[in-house]
């Protein structure tokens, strides 16, 4: 077994991207109790918005704004029909909308813009960000970690973003605004009877979490490339598992959960073949994923508050 692989994945930019998405989901689910099953869709919107604008010659800041505006519009579009309805409608619509984004993205129809099912190559949009890098353009080793200079730059920025949004969550959670949100999660009707516009508050939560998810998408695109099929339904389920593992409604839950999730995922992929030698190469990945599902079930049944959470706080009943 190789512990270096595990250490490597824990700090890698992909993990940071998923941590951002999980923080976004924490605004939805942990703070407001919204069941957004389409976080991967927000990530896709973010990466398409940024990569398409930058690869067509716009500056990076414009790409960033377009990605954020895209995520805001997407959230408004999803929230509009569903936030007045029972919780599982939002779940079905978000999962459907995320699939629509993926299907349209990989369709041959818009190939000129989205690159069809092969997506957009990294070198078409990574330059503006990587040219800012203070790290030399070579492999650098710091402690047990070894990354390329650009990856170091990306993961520095990404983890700073993670820290900033965790801080934002911490401040907002205990603010008057956050208390209204938590009130909505516990008892929507009670908050409505206090004269609060529940619909508008839920929409704000959906927008904020979605924008954070879109930023996670941009980070993900920089660590690999824009590829629609890497952001499927399963991706959303990973983010959910990570969030619930760490503890919804807590500040560090999503971050801890994401790191643990990836560490365990790599661990299972390494240990699985040792334990079950009959498994051939193509069966290791599905086995690891089956364990993710099992983990999700066991978490909800036995420890819905996750590692850091408070059981009384997270008794969500849509």
């Amino acid at each position, binding site marked *: 077994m190789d512990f270096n692989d595990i250490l490597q994945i824990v700090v890698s930019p992909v993990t940071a991207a998923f941590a951002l998405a999980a923080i976004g989901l924490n605004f939805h689910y942990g703070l407001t109790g919204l069941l957004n099953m389409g976080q991967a869709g927000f990530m896709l919107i973010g990466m398409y918005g940024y990569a398409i604008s930058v690869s067509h010659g716009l500056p990076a800041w414009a790409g960033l704004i377009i990605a954020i505006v895209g995520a805001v519009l997407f959230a408004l579009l999803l929230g509009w029909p569903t936030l007045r*309805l029972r919780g599982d*409608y939002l*779940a079905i619509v978000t999962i459907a909308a995320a699939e629509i984004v993926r*299907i349209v993205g990989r369709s*041959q129809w818009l190939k000129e813009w989205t690159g069809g099912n092969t997506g957009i190559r990294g070198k078409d949009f990574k330059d503006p960000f990587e040219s800012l890098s203070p790290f030399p353009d070579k492999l650098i080793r710091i402690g047990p970690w070894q990354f390329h200079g650009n990856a170091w730059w990306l993961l520095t920025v990404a983890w700073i973003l993670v820290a900033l949004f965790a801080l934002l969550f911490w401040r907002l959670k205990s603010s008057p605004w956050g208390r209204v949100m938590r009130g909505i999660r516990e008892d929507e009707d009670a908050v409505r009877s206090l004269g609060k516009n529940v619909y508008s508050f839920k929409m704000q939560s959906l927008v904020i979490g979605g924008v954070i998810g879109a930023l996670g998408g941009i980070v993900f695109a920089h660590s690999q490339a824009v590829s629609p099929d890497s952001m499927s*339904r*399963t991706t959303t389920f990973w983010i959910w598992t990570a969030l619930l593992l760490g503890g919804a409604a807590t500040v560090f839950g999503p971050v801890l959960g994401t790191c643990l999730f990836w560490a365990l995922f790599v661990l299972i992929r390494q240990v699985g073949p040792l334990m079950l030698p009959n498994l051939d190469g193509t069966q290791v990945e599905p086995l690891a994923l089956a364990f993710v*599902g099992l983990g999700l079930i066991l978490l909800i049944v036995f420890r819905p508050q996750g590692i850091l959470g408070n059981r009384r706080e997270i008794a969500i009943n849509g």
Partner: protein
Amino acid sequence: MRQATLSSLTRNTVVWRALAIAVVVALLVFAFLQSASAADVADTESVAPGTNKFLQTVMKGTIYGLLLALASVGLSLIYGTTGLSNFAHGESVTFGAATAFVAVGAGAPLWLAIIIAVAAGAASGWFQDVILWKRLRKRNVPNMQQMIVSIGLALVMVNLLQIWIGPDKVRLVTSSPVDRQFGPIALSNFDLIMVAICIVALGSVSYFLMRTRLGRATRAVSDNPALASATGISVNRVIRVVWMMAAALAALAGPMLALYTGTLNFMLGADILLMMFAAVTLGGLGHPFGAAVGALVIGIVAKLTEVYSPAPDLKNASVLAILILTLLVRPQGILGRKERVG
């Protein structure tokens, strides 16, 4: 809200049904006009001579819709009786197809393989309820959390199915069906048998729900579990039967979908899960006949998009767009009762 007067309810429902039918008819007419203009361009690659491409597409869509109905009725029954949106229902479909595939591989004739698949499906429904769902109900786990559990179950099942039947597309039968001409449409023997099986199966379900004692108990549980329990109905027994029925129907739909599309893989059910949700929502959540109506509409629209739209790979996207529009315009669905869903 539920105690709306009977007359107003009926009038409302009639108006909405008429509207829904009108929308469908308008869609079909629109598509027909499109096809009439497209016929001049003469793309005869996909249809045999003497076949009307539009009618053929609608017919194929209807068959697809019937298969989808078979798969979705169970989803709707489970939602109706337990309030759970079961995201693992697609895997029940795949499980049926995979079981039939393995049975055929072991030398069973196709009809026997399908019967084995249905039996295995019913058994898996029973097993799921005993191992998982009954316990969750007993612990009073909220529906939203049960939904996340079903997502976890879907992840477990889809990956185990992948390990079981492998990652590749496989064929259930090696022979490809021969089309026969029926006036302007061409159908294979498989198509005819599938239509017959679907109609018999859906007919039995409605007979069960409307005429048998257990079926009436099921509808009572759907309506109000506490009241049903108070009148002496064993709610847990009813729900167990519903789980078995739902999984068995899905397992029946699995091999037939595999025959319809020609191939199957471990994603067969996961790929149509959202179509099933769209069908169930369009028809009215928890309303089993609604699911069937919704599935027919969805099946026809999906096929029409596939054949006529400039981007055939947007087939699923068009269906999901219908889902979102339904929620905007009429969240209770075509057959659903007008009540507050929030």
